[in-house]
């Protein structure tokens, strides 16, 4: 009986499942027209830029301050807009 065979047969073929992967849309840093630059002197380490960054590329550590992964930063400017101390400025990419 074909139907029963289908039911008891375990799946042994490779099922095409998507796996978590960095950069599904490529290196999104190429989209950027403006680059966020952090002035670590002004930074008060409030974490707001990291919390709001839509691409999750900012890491703020109490010891080192914010670092940005420019390979993927899309240059949206949200971080510079939410920063309470004006530590992030957007400079045009050449």
């Amino acid at each position, binding site marked *: 009986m074909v139907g029963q065979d289908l039911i008891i047969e375990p799946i042994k073929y490779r099922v095409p499942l998507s*796996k978590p*992967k960095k950069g599904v849309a490529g290196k999104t840093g190429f989209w950027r027209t403006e680059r966020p630059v952090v002035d670590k002197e002004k930074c008060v380490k409030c974490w707001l830029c990291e919390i709001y960054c839509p691409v999750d590329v900012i890491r703020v550590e109490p010891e080192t301050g914010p670092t940005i992964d420019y390979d993927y930063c899309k240059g949206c400017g949200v971080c510079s807009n939410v920063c309470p101390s004006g530590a992030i400025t957007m400079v045009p990419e050449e």
Partner: protein
Amino acid sequence: MAQTKPRPPLPYNMRDIVLPGDAACPGCPIPMAWKVLAAVFREKMILVIPACCSSVVVGAYPGNSIKASVVHVAFASAAAVASGIAEALKRRGINDVQVIAWAGDGGTADIGMASLSGAAERNHDIIYIMYDNEAYMNTGIQRSSSTPYGAWTTTTPIIGKTEHKKDVARIMIAHGVPYVATASVAYPHDFYAKLQRARRIKGFKFIHLHAPCPTGWRFDPKYTVHIAKLAVETGLWILYEYYDGKIHLSGPSRPYMDPAKRKPVEEYLKLQGRFKKITPEKIEEIKKYAEEYWDWIKRHM
């Protein structure tokens, strides 16, 4: 060096779940909100996503931009599929994974309304999050029933929409579900607290999340958070929770119960290109609608 201050859950818990390099437009509110989901559930969530921007944002095979299980489903069926998954998990005795239906305003207020209503009536143990960018952005900014009064879309008259926004949160309260809340991408700590409360409640939970879209609302992407904040500060978007039969006003919205403390509505509207053609009479109408909404909140507190 020893750690002196305790590490706050935000941002430390939200790291490394939403992966960089997704297909979202710059300044998109969707991954911002996912980071808050990640802070609450980490990998232990199953997102059920109907056709919407989010299904594009997670990317196509073989990659997936979020480190969690994602089920892509047809437009009308997010709540139905999520109910099924929640039941299946229950039968298997898996109770540390949260099923989340994540749908846009089109997939909730228009096309998904029937299955949403059914799932709420059966009170399945899921969290339904409607991220509201107030139009069908993915297909080219068409009007949805959640588009606000006076806003331009590609399928409204040139003077803007002539009907008010459908209030889905109030529809869900009328279903008698145990938990309904409104949230905003500009207040991640508030959204985090609401998700923490929702995960402890058994049954159907609904969260209406306000999510400004730079592409569809025609504003500079850097203002995503600023505009979401202004919506709350002008009193147009009210953050509250509903449980135990009562409305509980959330912290960020509490000062704006008093109309004198609210910022002028014009400040919110003038930043957005979709309100370019708005007239003073329409602004009055928007204010009147907001006032009625506040009255309803005050009556049910």
